[in-house]
């Protein structure tokens, strides 16, 4: 058990190391010179000034030295200073993170509840309900988020006036963005739930339960849905983890100052430290969520516990 946890942790560290290298390398290789932005405009571009700026940000060091320095600082909790805002990156992240986390959490609650409910409904009712759910969720996925966002804003924000059109800070501010974010996920989750339940329903032990006189409602809850829980939870985790890195569009459209809009701004201004930190944060968040889902599997399926103790 201790060995398994150690191996797992070592794997996580290796993954993080590899992604940090790729992220740093990508930022390094990106076209454009950050110095242009750092210098603050073309009129300031005297060679002496450029050299001074380069020296200040260690931009003349070899790649490996730059990477090593960045990694060491990051490990010590220093993600550097933003080129653009001249602020500690850590402070920028701390200010932006709650909005994004809140948005993703809100969207997750929405797509889990609605997606699972629709999937169960489609599997249990079948027939016309099934086709309606499939058609409706397919339609919802095929609408691009920025279109859905615009439609939601114009109906619920402008015409009905139920929700604020832009800006953040409160639950109601996050409602429309969360709905936009959840729309595509509902289709995935309802599809996975429906499929898993249909597969479970065909299993012998479900017939056995039916033959023992159990009411149909209890069969669905205790056997069919219970059996389908594994794939459903896994999929919810993956989708939710993916959202952490996919809030860019929604944040931009709704004018939320979250991690996504921070990233877009940072890329546009060649703000390396911020870009790197945000990307690394997204990777960390993704890995954390998927690891949590993996750790939850033995709780859902006792057979996974055996493999675990054997591993």
């Amino acid at each position, binding site marked *: 058990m201790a060995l398994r946890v150690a191996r797992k942790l070592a794997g996580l560290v290796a993954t993080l190391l590899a992604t940090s290298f790729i992220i740093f390398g990508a930022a390094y290789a990106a076209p454009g010179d950050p110095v242009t932005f750092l210098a603050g405009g073309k009129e300031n571009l005297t060679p002496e000034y450029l050299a001074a700026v380069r020296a200040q940000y260690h931009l003349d060091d070899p790649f490996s030295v730059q990477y090593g320095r960045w990694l060491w600082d990051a490990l010590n909790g220093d993600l550097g200073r933003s080129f653009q805002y001249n602020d500690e990156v850590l402070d920028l992240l701390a200010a932006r993170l709650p909005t994004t986390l809140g948005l993703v959490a809100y969207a997750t609650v929405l797509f889990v509840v609605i997606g699972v409910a629709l999937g169960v409904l489609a599997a249990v009712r079948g027939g016309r309900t099934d086709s309606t759910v499939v058609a409706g969720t397919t339609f919802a996925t095929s609408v691009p988020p920025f279109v859905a966002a615009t439609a939601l804003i114009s109906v619920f924000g402008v015409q009905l006036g139920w929700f604020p059109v832009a800006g953040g800070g409160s639950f109601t501010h996050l409602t429309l963005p969360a709905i936009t974010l959840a729309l595509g996920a509902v289709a995935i989750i309802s599809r996975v739930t429906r499929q898993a339940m249909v597969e479970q329903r065909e*299993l*012998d*032990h479900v*017939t*056995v*339960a*039916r*033959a*023992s*006189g*159990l*009411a149909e409602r*209890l069969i669905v809850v*205790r*056997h069919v849905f*219970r*059996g389908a829980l594994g794939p459903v939870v896994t999929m919810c985790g993956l989708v939710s983890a993916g959202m952490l890195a996919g809030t860019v569009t929604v944040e931009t459209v709704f004018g939320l100052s979250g991690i996504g809009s921070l990233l877009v701004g940072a890329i546009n201004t060649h703000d390396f430290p911020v870009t790197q930190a945000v990307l690394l944060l997204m990777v960390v968040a993704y890995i954390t969520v998927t690891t949590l889902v993996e750790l939850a599997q033995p709780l*859902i*399926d*006792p*057979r996974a516990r*055996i493999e675990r103790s054997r591993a």
Partner: protein
Amino acid sequence: MLLSVEDLTLEAGGRRPILRDVALQVRRGEIVGLVGESGSGKSTIARAVLRLLPQGARVSGRVLVGGEDVLTMDDARLRALRASDVSMIYQDPRSSLNPVRRIGDFLTERMILTLGRPAAEARSRAAELLAAVGMRDPERRLRQYPHELSGGMLQRVVIAAALAADPALILADEATSALDVTTQAETLALLRTVQAERGLGMLFITHDLHLASAFCDRVHVLYAGTVVESRPAADLFADPRHPYTAGLLGCTPELGDPRPLRPIPGRPPSLDDLLPGCPFSPRCPHAEAECETWAPRPVAVEGGVAACRLIPVAVQERSPV
């Protein structure tokens, strides 16, 4: 009469019915065998007793359990019948149990959720049942998951669950076929014991005619959804009257028997084979032209019935078919 199936015909889309005019009876305290190849409709009969019918099945005839027709009763009565009057034991114990629930949940589910017993009482009853089917340390077993038990132990669990509600009738659908030989013998002995102790009626379904004749009081032989022979086990084994029964006995090897193995030629009919006459006629060594149009009906023979056109002739000539 505990179980009485009368003229049960069941169609589900194929060109021929899955079951055709099936009749069989099980009395209290009696073990009745139901023998046939795969696809002959054995399991369909057992499932029909619990009204677990294939999708879109059209069914006629009657299935009486304790005088009540299962096919026409309302849903509440049907659930009560499934919960407390009739229990089924299945071929593969490993797929009969929900893999993510404990043995204890499987055993107490029916008692708590359908019979409404208190949880604590159900739990102690479950432990008693496990002890009754010969499992050591029942309290620990209750907390285990199906994958932690062997196939033989799981079949004991399934048998214990079948006894949970004190049913009058047990349907054993290939209950020992998926087990290895020693476990099979233990399970058979256990089934016989609980059946005798409780005076249960049992419908014992198997593809093994030898096993059926050793284990059962009476045996029905099923071919393509039709009962072709129905007689006391000993008579059937000693002197099969239907050519199919004789053919089944002929294709099992026996120690000290000099006869060569004689597989039945041809293949079992599928649901898309239209069989206007005797269903066995295409594979029957004695078939005559008339057999292909003769609708099978039971003909009285010693101890029971057989559905063969040639039997009266055979009786007159005193020669086994």
